[in-house]
């Protein structure tokens, strides 16, 4: 580890180390692409995973904070790149270095108007093509008259822009076709039974074979990051359960952790245990629903009811304690909202008693079925390199043999004390993604069984000031949601509201990789692959 620090200190003398072990570097745009290449390829640094790109408006400058992570050395580096030009801000793209870069840069372009030189696809990602202004800039004019609700069909273009730097340093804009004129393009979505939400795949097909997919997002973009900037810290929490509604607890946990770290709040052991138990319960419930809907996508409807039976039991447990069956507002700054329901322990034990038999049944009905095997094995193979490059975390990444479980890599809360295995598989196909989730349910059950008899007494929520102000600074935390690594970047200017709250969801890269792994497969495989990646649209759209 120190070798990595030394190397970075040698290459980038301006690097500093932040509180939670993240190395921070500021690099000028002119050197950025070269530096990024070094960071990615140098044997002693190997920053091969681009966690997120945080677009920033510091009012005096626009720019990005790139969070990079080394899968080899398990170290995070935050690189800041700035430009002071507000009229036509430009930075150099890293889309050629990290597969997920293209998508992240489009998001930054959408919100901040920063153009990335060399990015092959500079369209807006979430907002409509005719949107005026860049909403996350601090000088954005949110007058509704500028962007009225359209009564017309949304304009759509088959062309995209790309900016190329010429040898003499000038930047040229070029128009590129998304599809060839003769392509037979089928719209799969936004209203489609198998896209799991309002996501749209424009699919160029040749007969039944897929040639190219263009992913359209933003149908349920709610501007959560923008909204959070006008809310106090406790209020921002309530948006987290509207992202990935199956990982509501995990996401709340993530944001609470960042705010608690920033405010220096120490929460009680009891609250920690409750939070972890809730996280794991939601993980089982989420994977149950995944198995059910995935089998339904493949045409085996009956499985849905068998998995919902278990999920129902978990939702009952949650309802008793949290008072809700969806969009739980349970974790709060300082602990959890209220104490556990009296029969929580008994209910969890009852669940743990029936779970193994159910998992066995799922395997019996579906996993061993020859049709299911033919549909899933070897379909949508994602190599380990591609999984890292496209930032495919969570069970989908682990199915490609990338040990990316944040509970193990950056243990938070009490995870370091718990005995559980990180489930990985080597095949990287849809079957592996399916099996990893099945086995993860068993691991979550293992965690629950360790905790269920050891819930310590104590207060469930510590005293937190009524008006919470965070010190000036920025923080970044990663937690493991049900679908992958969920990152929260928080920048505070010392007031009661966040200056910038960036959410790095796991599902955005999942949608970004669909085109890459479906090329050349059949239409039916798109459903198999999409289902096995298990993306949640509100999570990617935010």
């Amino acid at each position: 580890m120190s070798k990595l620090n030394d190397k970075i200190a040698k290459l980038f003398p301006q690097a500093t180390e932040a509180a939670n072990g993240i190395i921070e570097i500021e690099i000028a745009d002119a050197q950025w692409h070269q530096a990024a290449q070094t960071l990615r390829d140098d044997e002693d640094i190997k920053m091969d995973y681009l966690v997120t790109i945080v677009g920033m408006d510091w009012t005096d400058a626009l720019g990005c904070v790139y969070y990079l992570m080394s899968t080899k050395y398990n170290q995070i580096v935050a690189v800041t790149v700035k430009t002071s030009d507000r009229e036509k801000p430009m930075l150099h793209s890293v889309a050629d270095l990290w597969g997920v870069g293209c998508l992240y840069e489009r998001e930054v372009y959408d919100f901040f108007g920063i153009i990335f030189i060399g990015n092959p696809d500079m369209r807006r990602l979430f907002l409509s093509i005719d949107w005026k202004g860049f909403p996350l800039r601090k000088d954005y004019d949110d007058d509704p008259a500028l962007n009225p609700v359209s009564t017309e069909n949304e304009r759509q273009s088959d062309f995209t822009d790309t900016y190329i730097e010429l040898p003499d340093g000038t930047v040229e804009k070029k128009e590129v076709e998304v599809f060839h004129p003769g392509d037979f393009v089928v719209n799969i979505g936004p209203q489609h039974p198998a896209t799991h939400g309002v996501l749209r795949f424009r699919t160029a097909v040749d007969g039944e074979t897929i040639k190219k997919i263009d992913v359209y997002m933003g149908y349920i973009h709610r501007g959560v990051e923008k909204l959070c900037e006008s809310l106090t810290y406790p209020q921002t929490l309530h948006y987290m359960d509207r992202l990935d509604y199956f990982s509501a607890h995990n996401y709340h946990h993530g944001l609470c952790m960042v705010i608690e770290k920033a405010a220096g709040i120490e929460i009680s052991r009891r609250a920690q245990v409750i939070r972890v138990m809730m996280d794991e319960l939601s993980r089982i419930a989420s994977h149950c629903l995944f198995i059910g809907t995935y089998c339904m996508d493949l045409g085996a409807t009956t499985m849905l009811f068998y998995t919902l039976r278990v999920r129902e039991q978990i939702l009952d447990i949650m309802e008793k304690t949290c008072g809700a069956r969806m969009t739980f507002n349970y974790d709060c700054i300082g602990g959890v909202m209220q104490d556990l329901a009296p029969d929580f322990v008994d209910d969890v034990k009852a669940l743990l008693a029936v779970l193994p038999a159910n998992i066995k049944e799922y395997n019996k009905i579906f996993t061993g079925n020859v049709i299911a095997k033919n549909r899933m094995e070897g379909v949508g193979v994602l190599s380990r390199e591609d999984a890292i490059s496209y930032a495919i975390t969570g069970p989908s990444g682990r199915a490609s043999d990338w040990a990316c479980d944040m509970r193990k890599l950056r243990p938070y809360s009490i995870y370091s004390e718990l005995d559980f295995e990180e489930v990985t598989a080597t095949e990287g196909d849809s079957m592996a993604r399916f099996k990893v989730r099945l086995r993860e349910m068993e691991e979550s059950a293992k965690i629950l069984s360790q905790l269920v008899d050891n819930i310590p007494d104590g207060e469930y929520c510590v005293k937190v000031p009524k008006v919470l102000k965070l010190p000036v600074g920025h923080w970044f935390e990663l937690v493991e949601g049900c679908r992958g690594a969920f990152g929260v970047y928080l920048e505070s200017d010392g007031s009661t509201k966040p200056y910038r709250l960036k959410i790095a969801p796991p599902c955005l890269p999942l949608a970004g990789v669909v085109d890459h792994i479906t090329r050349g497969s059949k239409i039916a495989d798109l459903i198999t692959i999409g289902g096995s990646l298990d993306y949640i649209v509100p999570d990617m759209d935010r």
Partner: protein
Amino acid sequence: MQDFSIITDAIHSFLLTYLPGWLTVTVECVLIGVGLLLVYALLALFYIYYERKVCAAFQCRLGPNRVGPWGLLQSFADMFKILIKELIQLNNIDKFLFALAPYLVIIASMLAFAVLPWGNGLQIIDFNIGIFFLIAVSSIGVLGILLAGWSSNNKFTLIGALRSGAQMVSYELSVGLSVITMVCLAGTMSVGGIVDEQSDLWFIFKGHVPAIIAFIIYMIAGTAECNRGPFDLPEAESELTAGYHTEYSGIHFGFFYLAEYLNLFIVSGVASLLFLGGWMPLHIPGWEAFNHIMDFIPSVIWFLGKAFLLSFVIIWFKWTFPRLRIDQMLLLEWKYLLPIGLFNLALMTCVIVFGWHF
């Protein structure tokens, strides 16, 4: 054994006493037509209820249980709902073909009803190429599906229709081959003749190994023929929303829906005709008393019972298996079912030539 031809003959001679010969035939045709429509509608309603209840049982649910006792009136309510729904007029479609397609599909399945052996003496038409006629008319259905997909001017329906074309044309071969195999054993193509041949023993026992192979092939190919899971690719809802009938509404959609259920009945009916003796009760050579008792069960019940039992198996397929992919489905047909079917035909011929059957 009860013989329904006594009743039909009585009606015939009763009509002849009052009417001239040509008018008698006309009146009989109208009566049969009305009766057929009624049976058709009732069977479809029964099947909808049947499948709902069966799949509910598989899925740990209750199924329809609110409308009428045990939810029996649910299908009727749904039928009336679909009857009063609007037929949505679409722009930029081939209106004539679009309207024609559901009728082609429903006519195909209704024509097949004509040759089914409903009971002893209860068959609408029994002629010497009965089973051949059945195969011929049931392949009209694919035309309707192709037209529906094509005329809707929708990419999903087009893909669904093309899938359906590939599927039906392929699997018709296997259906045909297993039918020929059994025709070899029966020595006749007349439906009545095939049933009579099984009066001592059902073909599935009589033809033992080749008959069982043909039965399995027929059940798989038959499931594919009626577009049901795991072969429901033409309307794979998670891929193509509703496949070839995405754009249809009201009773036109209802026709596709009815035809799908009736095809299920026809496939099971033909399977029971070819392998399980049609309306013929279970007879075992030498067990005279047993055979006599079996004869007391009306032949209609035998036929419907066998058909419903086989339908249950097909419904079971659907609610258990995931859907195949198009290439896997064609692979199954062309690389496995068809060669096995051809080999089985040769095997059956040997069995008959050497007299190895029971």
